[in-house]
């Protein structure tokens, strides 16, 4: 247990990837909704603000017009990517997201919560110790907390996938494929790669197999991702699931965030340490850590 949490050496490239990837996805997501911000959170909302339920522990809700101007938000995202005052920047972005997006749960969706998770980890983990301006400016040394941080992210994802799979397994419509068929048919979920699969209703087993595939993939995730042999295949299947969701259902930002978190948790840490450009490991390791 002690070795698992503290002593195993993993490739730390996941730390700067988490920081830079989060910054890029936040920028992309902000740009992708910018034109609708006044109607959602601004001076001319589509619904009177008093009709929105505000999470009661939030001291205030940051309105788009009164709070953070767009330029400021974009600068914070760029600073996160570059790794300048990383912890402070991550905390400011985290506050922005909790006060604007998750404070109004009716207007939020899963992506907003994973953004807050990622920003929390950018603030708490030693993400600025590698490939950052902070490292150069403050001569930061590699951190011995890289592996404990990795375990936190990995265990978090295991909990998320296990419960996501378990809750789907409780629904009969996931067993016969109706749920996944129905999700595919809903008019709002149409991505760039959406194709009309109406003809495939003649093959209900195909949809049932897809439904069971998602249940098994998510439920077995916490068990199989620790096996060095199975991990690459299971990770590939998980990434394919999220890429499929992006392309066919149009949930681009959510899928991008899930792909980033999966790559950071179960792909990059298991890459060989001897790769050029990977600096800042506390100890060289002869081969990638298994398991």
């Amino acid at each position, binding site marked *: 247990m002690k070795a698992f949490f503290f002593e195993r050496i993993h490739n730390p490239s996941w730390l700067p990837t988490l920081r830079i990837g989060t910054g890029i996805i936040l920028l992309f997501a902000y740009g992708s909704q910018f034109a609708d911000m006044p109607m*959602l959170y601004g001076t001319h909302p589509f619904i009177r603000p008093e009709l929105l339920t505000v999470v009661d522990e939030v001291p205030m809700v940051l309105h788009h017009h009164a709070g953070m101007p767009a330029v400021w938000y974009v600068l914070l995202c760029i600073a996160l990517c570059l790794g300048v005052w990383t912890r402070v920047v991550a905390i400011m972005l985290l506050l922005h997201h909790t006060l604007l997006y998750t404070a109004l749960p009716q*207007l939020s969706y899963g992506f907003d*919560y994973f953004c807050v998770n990622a920003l929390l980890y950018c603030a708490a983990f030693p993400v600025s110790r590698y490939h950052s301006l902070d490292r150069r400016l403050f001569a930061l040394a590699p951190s011995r907390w890289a592996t404990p941080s990795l375990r936190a992210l990995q265990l978090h994802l295991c909990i998320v996938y296990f419960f996501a799979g378990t809750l*789907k397994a409780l629904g009969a419509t996931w067993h016969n494929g109706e749920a996944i068929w129905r999700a595919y048919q809903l008019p709002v979920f149409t991505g760039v790669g959406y194709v009309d699969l109406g003809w495939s209703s003649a093959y209900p087993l195909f949809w049932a197999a897809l439904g069971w595939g998602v249940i098994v993939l998510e439920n077995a995730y916490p068990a199989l991702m620790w096996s060095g042999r199975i991990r690459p295949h299971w990770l590939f299947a998980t990434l394919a699931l999220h890429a499929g969701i992006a392309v066919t259902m149009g949930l681009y930002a959510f899928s991008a965030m899930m792909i980033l978190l999966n790559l950071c948790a179960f792909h990059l840490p298991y890459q060989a340490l001897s790769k050029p450009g990977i600096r800042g490991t506390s100890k060289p390791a002869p081969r990638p850590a298994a398991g």
Partner: protein
Amino acid sequence: MGRIFYAALLGWHLAIIALHHVGSAVVVLRDTATVSQPAAERILHVLDRFRNAYVVRHYAHYTGTAIGSGYFAPQVGSHFHVSVSILDVNGRVQRTATELRWATRTGQLRYTSFRQLFRGFVVREDAHPDGHAYEKEVAKAIGVNLAHPLLDSLSEHVVTHVRAYRPPTLAEARLGKPGALREVYRDTACFLKIIQNDHESLLFRADP
């Protein structure tokens, strides 16, 4: 010392994540009748005592952990539409507006997420003592927003419709049947034409 502190912090963080996921799982177990209603309520009561504790509530909110993984589980819900018909004094339909116009896909997704609150309308009205007062208020507010740019001096009534769209099942699709669009709520509001200083303005008032 550092390791002990880390272990305590990690244990706390994962426990908060698990607490909220277990909570959403119990709700699904109750709704799918996998667990008896009283048993589920007892478990939820205990979980809520922890979830509503001041420190837990704040920590969960500011770390984005106050959420379960119940999206699309245990089943995929219907898609809700809000539309309005504007009637003249004789009850004839003048104009209709079907949806709010969103410039971006993310805006539309957030609005879609918001409209899920109308699933309460699908449940029988008498099952809820409040009669879905909040949902009705929201439907009316969106209806007014949709109708406002279309109103003129000939307009008299605004009828707001909330409809639930259910895609065809696999069996229905095989038979070539389309999805079902069912009205789950309708509201009629009329408004006053106020003429002040030769300027005409419109004022909504309560149900006719």
